[in-house]
């Protein structure tokens, strides 16, 4: 397919995944705010910002742990920053707007129902402000917004022709997912060191919340009888091949998509080789780690994140922005 169309679909996938991730993070933080002590709420925000690699408004989190009222006002500002802030390129609204703008540009290769879904979501969120959603139940806003993304992928899953347009949409979605998950788990280990003293590790609720963000609570519970052992949770979210929000699962989808768009010869392009290596390292190297060595594990997670960023460049070079001399037909 036309490179620019493929690129548009790839970015739709990335931006929608980003918007959904943002919704899940904030919805979970609001859960925390319902009944957790202020220092837990504070840590929740830290994890959130660290995971996204973003500095909050004003450059750093300045919590006043003695003042619950302050924490609430603070939550208002922080949620606004992550949801609506025009200057935040990754805010939920900007992510949706960018997905929609990409769809508009390549609309001739986007199914009408998918376009309608995005266009309506965009029109709905375009003029909303944080005060509007704060007045009633903010959780519902995030749930509704996430539902938009789910609807989009539901329609895509059910109706899209499985040609390259589908594959590039998947590719964008799962490269983004792998990268976001690596960042989130890294942030979790930073705020709640798994190998540190018992007191620092965080309690069950902190690990439960991480599982909840990744829609992994029930699956984990069936396997581990709700023993929220940090190392087991981390391992589950990194390496579990059957969990849709695990790094390994995302990489498997990336490899599949690359396999499809390269006509079964993914190893001929650097993107295919890199994705394969990354998946293999989780299969073969990750199990040998020391679960108590947070520094080493965080370094590994950051490496996964970096690899995802390089993978993005590889995909761009191989399929979207290649020079004339690199063309297979040249």
């Amino acid at each position, binding site marked *: 397919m036309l490179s*620019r169309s493929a690129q548009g679909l790839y970015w739709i996938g990335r931006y929608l995944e980003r918007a959904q991730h943002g919704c899940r993070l904030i919805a979970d933080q609001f859960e925390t705010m319902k009944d957790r002590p202020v220092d837990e709420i504070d840590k929740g925000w830290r994890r959130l910002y660290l995971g996204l690699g973003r500095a909050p408004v004003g450059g750093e989190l300045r919590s006043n742990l003695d003042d619950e009222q302050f924490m609430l006002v603070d939550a208002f500002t922080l949620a606004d920053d992550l949801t609506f802030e025009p200057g935040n390129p990754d805010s939920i609204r900007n992510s949706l707007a960018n997905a929609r703008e990409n769809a508009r540009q390549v609309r*001739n290769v986007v199914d009408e129902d998918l376009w309608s879904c995005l266009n309506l979501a965009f029109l709905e969120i375009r003029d909303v402000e944080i005060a509007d959603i704060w007045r009633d139940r903010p959780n519902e806003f995030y749930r509704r917004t996430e539902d938009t993304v789910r609807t989009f992928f539901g329609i895509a899953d059910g109706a899209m022709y499985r040609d390259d347009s589908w594959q590039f949409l998947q590719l964008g979605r799962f490269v983004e997912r792998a990268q976001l998950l690596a960042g989130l788990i890294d942030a979790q280990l930073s705020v709640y060191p798994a190998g540190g003293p018992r007191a620092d590790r965080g309690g069950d609720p902190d690990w439960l919340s991480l599982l909840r963000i990744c829609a992994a609570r029930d699956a984990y519970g069936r396997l581990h009888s709700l023993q929220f052992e940090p190392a087991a949770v981390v391992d589950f979210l990194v390496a579990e091949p059957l969990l849709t929000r695990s790094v390994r699962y995302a990489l498997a989808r990336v490899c599949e998509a690359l396999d499809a768009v390269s006509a079964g010869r993914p190893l001929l392009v650097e993107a295919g080789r890199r994705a394969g290596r990354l998946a293999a390292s989780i299969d073969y190297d990750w199990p040998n780690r020391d679960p108590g060595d947070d520094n080493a594990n965080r370094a590994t997670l950051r490496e996964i994140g970096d690899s995802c960023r390089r993978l993005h460049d590889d995909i761009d070079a191989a399929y979207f922005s290649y020079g004339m001399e690199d063309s297979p037909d040249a």
Partner: protein
Amino acid sequence: MPVEQAGTGGPAEGGQLFAGYETDPAFYDEMFDAAGAPRAHCRELWEALGETPRDEIATMQERAERSFLHEGITFSVYGEEGAQERIIPIDIIPRLVSAEEWENLERGLRQRLEALNLFLADIYGPGRIVADGVIPADLVRGCPQFRIAMRGVEVQHGAYVSVCGTDLVRTHDGFQVLEDNLRVPSGVSYMLANRQAVKTSLRNVFRRHRVRGIEDYGRLLRQTLAELSPRGDADPTIVLLTPGVYNSAFYEHMFLAREMGVELVQGSDLVARNGFVYMRTTGGLQRVDVIYRRIDDDYLDPLAFRPDSVLGTPGLFNAYRLGNVAIANAPGTGVADDKSVYAYVPEMIRYFLNEEPLLANVETHLCRDPEGLEFTLDNLDRLVVKEVGGSGGYGMLVGAHATAEERTAFAELIRQNPSNYISQPTLDLSCAPCLTEDGAAPRHVDLRPFVLRGQETRLVPGAFCRVALTPGSLVVNSSQGGGGKDLWVLSE
């Protein structure tokens, strides 16, 4: 058709909708005759809409507009805040054209496009019409749209203009051609979208009529383009070339690409090398056979036309000249829709086809001629003056609506460069009922049918009907606040 039983059958009896409708004898009314009775082919519509409660019609109108917004059927307007997406307002009361009216229009349109294509083949070929003194040589060669590079280029089937959008108006004297749009005419997507919206919101009224379908347009366009392929194979690679998402007609480009199932490309997606044109795909470069371009000549190829263009594809024209790719419409067709050349179209029809023109031209005065210039300057207050290469309602003076100062200033422009201007009488554009807050009211309308020419000439029975939504306004251009209407060509 039942003969009216009682009363005049005038607007007042068509239920509440037409209660306050007042025709102006100065203008032909599309729905009502001079006595105020509905025309025979409009009676059914008049009855059906009259029976429908007003609030129901208002709801239908809202629904149609909302569907445009939700489906993103928009065009861009250039303003202070950059390009903005807007919808073209739709009026859901359709404009009806009888079977007989359409048949005459269609014959006239076919004849006209045939002559225009022969004219282009001649001026870029043997040049007989100029040699025989039918059209002044300097008018043709001095036209900014004349492309010397097109001399001697072989054009498949002589189809220089493959897609033509002719603007027609109706006065008491019948239909007249206001202008031929032969470069990159737009609006066909609104014709199709308006039909879709009106068919949905007025479905019961629609069912009561025998309206000829227009949904075939995308298929016919694809077939037309395929016939231009230099390879002559059954399934050529066709692309639609757009300037991009900021172009006012981007929605239409996207829409047509989807309808035809072809790639929508920008200049940067195309590469010309070794005399062939390729597009950049995820599987490498793929050869392109036919380019339906929706950008101006100037931006096609910086090597052949405007060197400062960043939109074009260097080497594209060379590939075209070598016959390795088709471009539709061909470069250089603009010379035939120049407003001075327009005045000679009836002569072209006589010269090339040896027939009398079936569609009338609007009386046109060329300021390049001394008599024309004098007449124009003397009668500025009742004329419309246009730049010969202008379009979209820009760069024109409507004398009757201008102030004395504006006229004086414009007269100076004309004197400085007479060849750049033509003048025409202010046209009494016909009116059609439009929905307003106070029921139906007359608004001025025109129509733009689309005629295709590949191996043969094709057109769907329909048109983009433009309407000046401001009361009394004669300007129907979308960029100047005009709206659209569905146009129903009846089959009997």
